[in-house]
Every structure is written in structure tokens, then in C-alpha cells.
């Protein structure tokens, strides 16, 4: 019994250390975003919201924030639609080359970002479509669709294979069944996918930096401010970006986990 208790304390301490390791940089960024000193040193100066004021009065930041918002929302919608179609195809149909189809569908996140970014730049330039807002949307959709597919596929795997036939049996055509059974059943995962892909797109830097040209997103602007000089307003922007992303990810997690635990028709 005593050993058990000791072990639990050790494990709890270890877990706390891991979380500290992961979150300390973000916490530091949060703390220094309210610190009056220009350089991130201890002891801290006084509390200030100047960096937020400065960051949010910068039209370039607003411009980038608006673009990030547009890119991430449009990306989320398109990637989720593609992900849903791919996941449903996998759930419903058996065909030759299905394994290859699945591997190809889930491949993009395994490609190093720099490679993907360069390839995207090269490809989009061929159509004179680089350096536009839509270029970022196209590139991010490629990157995000596999995440959407994975999330929706997980939900579909919990669907009783008789659920659709049951709807047909009660007089619903295939399209009506899609609308009144498949989509309601997968809705939590569709919303989770929208949040998750929006978060990925909102945060993504490497691909955006390559293909965005003058149409910068928030992460690109942060890097540009940083390369110029050391400016605590990046802490302010970073904290704001982190809050947006973590909110989306938490919503996605709650929807995916919450439903996964619920027992379905057995």
C-alpha cells in the first residue's frame, strides 16, 4: 500500500514535469507579454498591456489576422468536406486498391513541411497561382484534409453498419439517409474536424511563408517582426494566437472524446 502511494506521487510529479516542459515556453510568452521590459529577463519590470496595444494598433497585424481568419475558415470547410467524402468512401465501399487509396489519403502530414511547402510553391507557380490568399488556402487544404478524414473516420467506425440499411428499410432514399442519418451521426466529428483543421491552418507557418508572398498570415508576420528586432509585441500576438488555437483544439477534443466514450447500439 505504502509503495503504491509513493509510486503515485512519483508519477504525479513526473507528469507535472512533462507538462511544465511543454507549457513553460508558452507561459513565459504569456508572462513577458505583460512585462514592461523590452528584453525577457528576470526580475520582471512592471505590469503593462502596452505590447498588446502596440500589436493591435499595427495595421499589418490586423491585416494578417483577418487573412488568417479567412484562410483557416475556408480551409476548414473545404478540408472537412474532402475528409468526410474520403472517410465515407472508406466506410461504405470496398474496391480494388482501397489500401492504396487509404495510404495516399493519409500521407500528406508525413511529408516534411519544408518539402511540401517547396513543392506547393513550385506547383502553384506553374499556374501563376502563388503569392495569393487562395494559394495558402489550397496548400493548407492539402495539409488539413487527412486530419479531417482521420477524425471523421473514427466516428464512422462507431456507426452500426445496419444504420443506413435501417433508414432505407423505413423509406429513406440514399440521399435522404445521408442527410438524416449519416450526417447527424457524424456531426460531432464534423464540428471537431472543422475546429481542428482551422487550428492547424491558423498556426501553420512553413507552408504559409513559402506560398503567401505579400499576403501574410499571422505566423508569418510574427516571424518578420522577430527577424527585424527583439520586440515583446510578438509575445502579445503569440499569446492571442495560442488562445485561439487551444480553444479550437479543446472543442475538437471534447467532441471526439465525449462521443467516443458513449456506448452505441450493441
Amino acid at each position, binding site marked *: 500500500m505504502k509503495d503504491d502511494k509513493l509510486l503515485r506521487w512519483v508519477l504525479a510529479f513526473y507528469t507535472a514535469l512533462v507538462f511544465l516542459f511543454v507549457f513553460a515556453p508558452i507561459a513565459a510568452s504569456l508572462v513577458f507579454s505583460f512585462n514592461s521590459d523590452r528584453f525577457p529577463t528576470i526580475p520582471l519590470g512592471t505590469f503593462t498591456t502596452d505590447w498588446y496595444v502596440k500589436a493591435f494598433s499595427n495595421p499589418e497585424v490586423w491585416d494578417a489576422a483577418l487573412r488568417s481568419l479567412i484562410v483557416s475558415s475556408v480551409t476548414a470547410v473545404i478540408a472537412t468536406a474532402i475528409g468526410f467524402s474520403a472517410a465515407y468512401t472508406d466506410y461504405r465501399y470496398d474496391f480494388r486498391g482501397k489500401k492504396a487509396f487509404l495510404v495516399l489519403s493519409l500521407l500528406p502530414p508525413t511529408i516534411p513541411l519544408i518539402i511540401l511547402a517547396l513543392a506547393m510553391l513550385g506547383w502553384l507557380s506553374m499556374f501563376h497561382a502563388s503569392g495569393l490568399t487562395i494559394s495558402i488556402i489550397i496548400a493548407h487544404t492539402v495539409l488539413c484534409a487527412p486530419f479531417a478524414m482521420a477524425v471523421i473516420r473514427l466516428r464512422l467506425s462507431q456507426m*452500426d453498419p445496419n444504420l443506413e440499411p*435501417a*433508414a432505407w*428499410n*423505413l423509406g429513406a*432514399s440514399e440521399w*435522404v439517409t445521408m442527410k438524416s*442519418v449519416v450526417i447527424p*451521426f457524424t*456531426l460531432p466529428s464534423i464540428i471537431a474536424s472543422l475546429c481542428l483543421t482551422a487550428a492547424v491552418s491558423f498556426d501553420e507557418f512553413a507552408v504559409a511563408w513559402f506560398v503567401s508572398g505579400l499576403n501574410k498570415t499571422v505566423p508569418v508576420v510574427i516571424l518578420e517582426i522577430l527577424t527585424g528586432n527583439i520586440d515583446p509585441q510578438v509575445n502579445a500576438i503569440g499569446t492571442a494566437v495560442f488562445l485561439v488555437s487551444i480553444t479550437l483544439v479543446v472543442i475538437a477534443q471534447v467532441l471526439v472524446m465525449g462521443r467516443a466514450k458513449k456506448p452505441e447500439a450493441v
Partner: protein
Amino acid sequence: MAEPLVVFDNVVKRFGTFEAVKRMNFEIREGEFLALMGPSGCGKTTTLRMLAGLEQPTEGDIRLAGKSLVDVKPHERDTPMVWQSLALFPFLNARENVEFGLKMRGLDGPSRRRKALDWLERLGIGEFGERDVNSLSGGQRQRVALARALVTEPKILLLDEPLSALDAHLVIRMQAVLTKLQRELGITFVYVTHSQSEAFAMADRVVIMSKGEIAQIGSARDIYRTPANRFVAEFVGRNNIFAGTVNGSGNVDTPAGTFTLDGKAKPGERVSFVVAADVVSLSVSRPTARNTFAAQLISEEFVGSMVTLFLEAPGDTEIKVQVQERSLEGIPREPGQTLFLSFDSSHAHILKG
């Protein structure tokens, strides 16, 4: 006379090279409770799914009320089904589940609601209408599934092993619910099951299937007393099967003994016959009656006040005897004990094939 409600006319179903259903011809009469029974893989579920339109016959025709169902989409048929997994819509509450079929038929909201609640009430779960279906018990979910299928007032209801997920005592209760419902509504039930007790307890007629073919169609009594062939006799289980050759005096020589069948067989013929487990009598000393043989007791099994004795006669012949426990007083029942068994020749039924 009008054509029966459902006709299977030379129906064949192949999956690739596998023949799931082999040239099937049978009829389902209006208002009957028909069970399709057989071991797994015998084609009973495929047969039901063809009726619902979830599988297309490879050959042949299925007619419902005189109209061919070939090329009729599942959602255009009026053949609601109760699923083994129930397949309730988990994102709808009990009442909304029941309303689904009515909604697809374009009924307005208030009428749908009224009909759905009526049916839930009728099945004894009126107070659970607004409950999440995942929060209901197995028996309650079962009733929601029944209400959902029946609310559109179909002529025929298909049931695919609907009770297989329930506890034994609930199965008995649901059997009573189903038979009562079928009588009251007077509609046709087609019930797929691998369980003999379910089929025999509820069905007017039972279709026994084996390897994609119909082995026998008949009432529970017909099938039990006069199994058509060895498969049925073995599947039904409570039968003793003897095989032998008819000798010159018209009796059958089997490894277990020589039996007289009252001239039901011709000399020289090889025959198999069955004697049901509950018509075999048992004694400690050799009785003088005809058709007596000896066997050694192996084990026994109680089901309520009945006991089934398992014995072995010469030639590895497995013998089952089913009697009232009371009637065994004074009979020693140690394993290895030799007992004498006899049966009346009128109870011997000759198998074809």
C-alpha cells in the same frame, strides 16, 4: 385462390462463386408467423435481406402481393425490419426513432407524434418517449425497434434474430409480446433465428434451411415428429437416429439391435429412422416388449422437472431419453450403468435421404 402474400420463385443468390441460396421455392401465407431457422451460414438471413431488398437475387423472382420485387429499391418496399443490432438511430430519442418511417412518408408533425406515442404506449413504454435510446434497457430498446417497424402499418414484418442479444428471461417475455402482437395485428411475421426454441415457440410454420437449401417446411410438431431427413433430425436434436439394413423378415439390423418397423421398409434396403427422445421408455431389467435394446448411461441434464439422459448403445449409437424426473425413482443412475430401452414401432419415423 389468390396468390400467397410472398412467393420465392426459383430464387438463387450467389456471392462470387459462393452459392448462399440455391434455387429456393417457397411461399409465405398472409397472416402467418413464419420462422426461417438454421445454423449460421445456411442462407436464412440472406433470404430475409432479399425480401427487404438489401440483396438482389442472382436468379429468380420474389413477388410480394403478386408484384415482382426485382428492381424495387429497398426504400420503395413496404417491408420493415427489426434488426439483430436493433439499429436504432442514436441521435434521436425513442419517439423520434418511431416517427422516422412516418416522416419519410411525408406525414405531418402532429400526426407523426400521435401515432408514435400510440405505438410506444401499446408496447408498454409510453413514458420513455422522450428518453435517449442509449439510456433505455435492452427490453425497452427492443420495443422501440418494434414500434419503429410497425408504426407504418405494414402487411409484413421482417425480424432478423431480434432476441439474440437479450437475457434468457427477457427472451421468454419478448416471445410472448411478439406472438400476442402478431395475433392482434393479423399481419405476417417472417422471423429469422438459429434458435429452435424461439422458432418452435412462436411460429405457425418453420422453414429449416441448410447450406442454402430448404431442408423442411412444416409446423413445429411436424418437424419434431416426422423430420424429413437426417439433417433436420440432427438439428432438432431431441431425436435418436438409427441406421441399418432391412433383413429377410422385414426387421432392421442396426449396431444397437434389431428392430421391427411394421413393414415400413423393404428387405435389403438401407434405412435410417428416428425415435424421439421422449417416446423411449427405460427400465433396469430387460423388458419383454419388442424393439428393446441395451445402452450405457453416460450423463444426465436437468431442464426444469424434465431430465435428459445421455446413453451409448453398441456401434457408438448416441441415445437420448427425455423423461419426467419423478419417473426415474428406483432406477440407478451411476455413469456406466446398463439400462434397457424400448420404443413402440409406431413411433419410429423413417428418414428420406
